[in-house]
């Protein structure tokens, strides 16, 4: 008799079937859970700060369900997610930089849009979009596909203990490039933004059109000024910490950096460069195969409504594209937050999308490796 004859005979066919059935049931439950959840929630990709704190409850209240926000990386990333195979059915609402996304989402001709037309009749706050942002509304054949929901701007953000606000030098892009604050400057690791700022500083009226020799001149200028910088920052946490610790006196930064540091009591403010701050808008659009158009429209409408629009600036540093956004602010607050851009009292330049972006990226890489 075999020594092993009394031993358990190992996994039987029945056991395999049982395990398979269990896994199938689990997978089925998982899918059911996903489907059941989808009916009550929408999946969005947007700047995380724009749905943080009290802003989330405002938007969830409007959509009537939960908002699942995917991790935000960049506008480029949003376009990649949308244009990847199957990308038009993965999310219900996407919000990203207007200038950059307009072309890829609208496609070259009618019918090639990657997004759904929005029913503005169901978005009563659509009429509140400020005149300054009407250009960011993407429409075709009378249908609206993309609506600007919040905006912001980039500027020189600086520590007032190291750079006095009264210094006229600070009210320009110069601190980032000139010798005065050498060794205490941080640049932002973004080709688009840094070349735009340098172009403005060098007196180019439309830096977004830089190409060829003109672009090369700006790149060479940046390389010549690289000796003045302490570092090139890439994440919000890095930028804010550089300023807060005093490691740098100023940096190129988006306005939420200033907002966060001021909220925490640091003596930080931003310059209002005579060449203009670099402004940008983020617009909302609904991917073509989304099953939650109604809820997504409700969220867009809520973002233009008073509850959200009046809170977004203090909560995130971004500003509302809605006329309702700054109604409750005092003139001093409006100026400080940047709403002067809307009435023309603050000079700004749109962070337009450069047609030669590939050359810009190549040029910026030259700057970084120089």
């Amino acid at each position, binding site marked *: 008799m075999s*020594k*092993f004859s009394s031993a358990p005979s*190992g996994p039987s066919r029945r056991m395999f079937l049982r395990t398979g059935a269990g896994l199938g049931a689990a997978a089925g439950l*998982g899918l059911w859970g*996903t489907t059941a959840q989808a009916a009550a929630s929408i999946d969005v990709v947007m700047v*995380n700060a724009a749905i943080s704190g009290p802003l989330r409850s405002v938007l969830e209240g409007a959509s009537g369900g939960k908002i699942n926000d995917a991790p935000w990386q960049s506008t480029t990333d949003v376009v990649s997610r949308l244009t990847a195979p199957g*990308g038009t059915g993965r999310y219900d609402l996407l919000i990203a930089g207007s200038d950059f996304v307009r072309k890829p989402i609208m496609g070259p001709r009618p019918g090639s849009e990657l997004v759904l037309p929005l029913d503005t009749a169901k978005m009563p706050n659509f009429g509140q979009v400020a005149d300054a942002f009407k250009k960011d509304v993407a429409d075709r054949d009378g249908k609206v596909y993309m609506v600007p929901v919040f905006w912001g701007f980039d500027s020189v953000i600086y520590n007032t203990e190291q750079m006095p606000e009264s210094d006229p030098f600070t009210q320009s892009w110069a601190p980032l490039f000139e010798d005065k604050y050498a060794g205490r400057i941080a640049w932002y690791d973004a080709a688009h933004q840094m070349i735009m700022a340098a172009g403005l500083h060098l007196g180019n009226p439309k830096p977004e059109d830089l190409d060829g020799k003109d672009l090369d001149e700006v790149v060479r200028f940046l390389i010549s000024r690289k000796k003045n910088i302490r570092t090139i920052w890439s994440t*919000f*946490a890095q930028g804010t910490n550089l300023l807060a610790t005093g490691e740098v006196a100023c940096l190129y930064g988006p306005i939420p950096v200033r907002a966060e540091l001021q909220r925490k009591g640091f003596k930080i403010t931003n310059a209002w460069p005579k060449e203009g701050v670099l402004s940008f808008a983020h617009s909302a659009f609904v991917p073509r195969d989304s099953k939650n158009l109604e809820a997504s429209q409700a969220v867009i409408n809520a973002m233009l409504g008073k509850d959200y629009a009046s809170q977004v600036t203090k909560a995130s540093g971004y500003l509302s594209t809605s006329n309702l956004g700054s109604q409750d602010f005092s003139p001093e607050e409006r100026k400080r937050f940047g709403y002067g851009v809307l009435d023309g009292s603050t000079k700004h330049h749109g962070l337009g999308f450069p047609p030669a972006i590939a050359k810009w990226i190549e040029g910026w890489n030259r700057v970084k490796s120089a």
Partner: protein
Amino acid sequence: MSDAVLQAGTRPARSFAWPRAERLRKGLLCAYAGLFFLFLYAPIGLLLVLSVNDSEVIGLPFKGTTSRWYAYVLTTPELIRALANSFALGFVSAGIATAIALMMAMGFRREFPLKGLLMKIVLLPILIPGIVGSAVFLVFFGYLEIPFGLWTTALMVHITWALPFAFLTIFPRLHGFDRGLEEAAMDLGATPIVVFRRILLPIIRPGIVATFLFAFTLSFDEFVRTFLVIGTQRTIPVHLWTLIIDQMAPFLPAVGVVIMAVSVSVSLIGFALTPKEK
């Protein structure tokens, strides 16, 4: 004779000079090793210090001791959820990767056509840069219309990532296994399944545990391949990324310490379960 004289003559000189040179060599070696370990572990020590620094910024100077960052980490639902997701995904993906690696390793003990080529294919995910792999998965899952999620796409990505490492860990154990034991069992009438359960498995169990733990740590720390395919859910590395790109997040060092503690604990368990050489 002359050689002997020469040797006799040089010996005292050499024995006199040797200790000084040896002392110098040892000193330099110690300094090098000290610097090596300083560069290796000082950042970890700094992370520990910053995690209890009572400051709104991540950095020095040290402004007093606080446990509030740990309290924040352990009481914030999003962080707890991300941590739980990482644990769950790590356990499941490590379990599946280890099981597949074990089966493959058993198969690779035999000779078969294109074995060398297949081995290279198995190890390919190690060679593909993370960001490239991530984009490939994004496109692949898109064509297959697989919904993004922790238990769909992220699980597959983590298994694919951990599998070659699991295979490399477990294959040497099986390769060096004494086939005579299996043959002896079969001579006594054991079926292949019984041989596996009663002979092979008990002997290689420590290797399986070590493989599982290694695969778990790989999954737990994975970010690049996960980011694009996890949809709206978050593992702890993905959640950390979302924090650092739009927050000052002074609690980040505390999160780092918690993650490190998990990885170190898993490694220690692995060491404890690995049989000692006698």
